[in-house]
């Protein structure tokens, strides 16, 4: 848990600093961190918000970055089906990268379909995650305004996103898709409304799927998660 807590803290501070550094007020930064509670989505949409991209593009970007959670939810739902609807929505909201990684490691071979032990473990981990993350974020928001822009702290935000990206690049189709997305997004950087981003995602996913078919890769590896926090 300790190395995880350290990773969450680093990630939280970086996200907090990035929001304020880009020009968001402390009040809005706090509101965002306490409601959205999704580090990589928050960091991902910051450059879009800064240039006033249309809201549908902002939301679509967060949606795509968050799609990995759909897979997490699909693969851990078995442990939560017996909870009430409200409880399930709450559990889902708290089910970030870290909680999922720990929980699925611990109970991968457990034949039980949702026991009090599993729920206790889940909520315990989620609570620690939430508290550490929010404390780190608030620290970052408060300190963010103090750092000179020459320090290049916006790079820290890109480094944090790279930490989520790298563990996803374990197979050739994924690497090919990512390289295509890099090329397309850079070439199309001056497309209006930041639409180049969505074009790049479409191109990257298409290439990865084609690559998978050509390469005969049958099963993608089990859900990959980084050591990043809630993101």
């Amino acid at each position, binding site marked *: 848990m300790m190395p995880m807590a350290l990773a969450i803290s680093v990630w939280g501070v970086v996200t907090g600093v990035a929001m304020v550094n880009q020009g968001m007020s402390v009040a809005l930064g706090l509101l965002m961190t306490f409601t959205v509670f999704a580090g990589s989505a928050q960091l991902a949409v910051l450059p879009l918000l800064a240039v006033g991209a249309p809201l549908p593009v902002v939301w679509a970007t967060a949606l795509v970055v968050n799609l990995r959670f759909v897979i997490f939810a699909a693969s851990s739902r078995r442990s939560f089906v017996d909870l009430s609807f409200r409880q399930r929505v709450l559990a889902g909201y708290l089910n970030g990268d870290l909680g999922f990684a720990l929980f699925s490691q611990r109970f991968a071979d457990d034949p039980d379909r949702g026991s009090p032990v599993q729920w206790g473990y889940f909520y315990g981990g989620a609570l620690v995650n939430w508290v550490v993350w929010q404390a780190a974020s608030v620290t970052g928001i408060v300190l963010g305004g103090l750092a000179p822009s020459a320090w290049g702290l916006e*790079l820290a935000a890109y*480094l944090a*996103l790279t930490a989520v990206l790298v563990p996803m690049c374990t197979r050739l189709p994924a690497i090919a898709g990512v390289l295509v997305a890099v090329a397309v997004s*850079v070439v199309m950087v001056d497309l209006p409304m930041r639409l*180049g981003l969505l074009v790049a995602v479409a191109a990257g996913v298409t290439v990865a799927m084609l690559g998978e078919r050509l390469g005969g890769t049958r099963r993608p590896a089990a859900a990959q998660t*980084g050591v990043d926090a809630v993101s």
Partner: protein
Amino acid sequence: MRLDDWGYMLAAIAGLMIVTVLTRASFFMLPSHVQLPTRVERALRYAPACALAAIVAPGVLTREQEIAIGWGNHQMWALLTAAAVFAKTRNMAAMMAIGMGVFTVLRLAA
């Protein structure tokens, strides 16, 4: 500059929260007989990686909407070094320290 436009930002934040709940709790909310088709699952697996790449790449490889790949791009070298470190160690704190360290050294040396 829209980050201080409260109407725009409040709408953005509300939508981001909804998107987060919908994705995280997606299959917790659906009835248990609804399954994810394999093809869709594969596409979902690749999309987040591509999106992250498409956010990071223009941020680090372009300046003022122009491609800026070269020796003078300190952010690019810092990020490549940090990514290599992270791929080897999976240590987030170390990769942040090394990435920012490389950037700072290059910036001060230039």
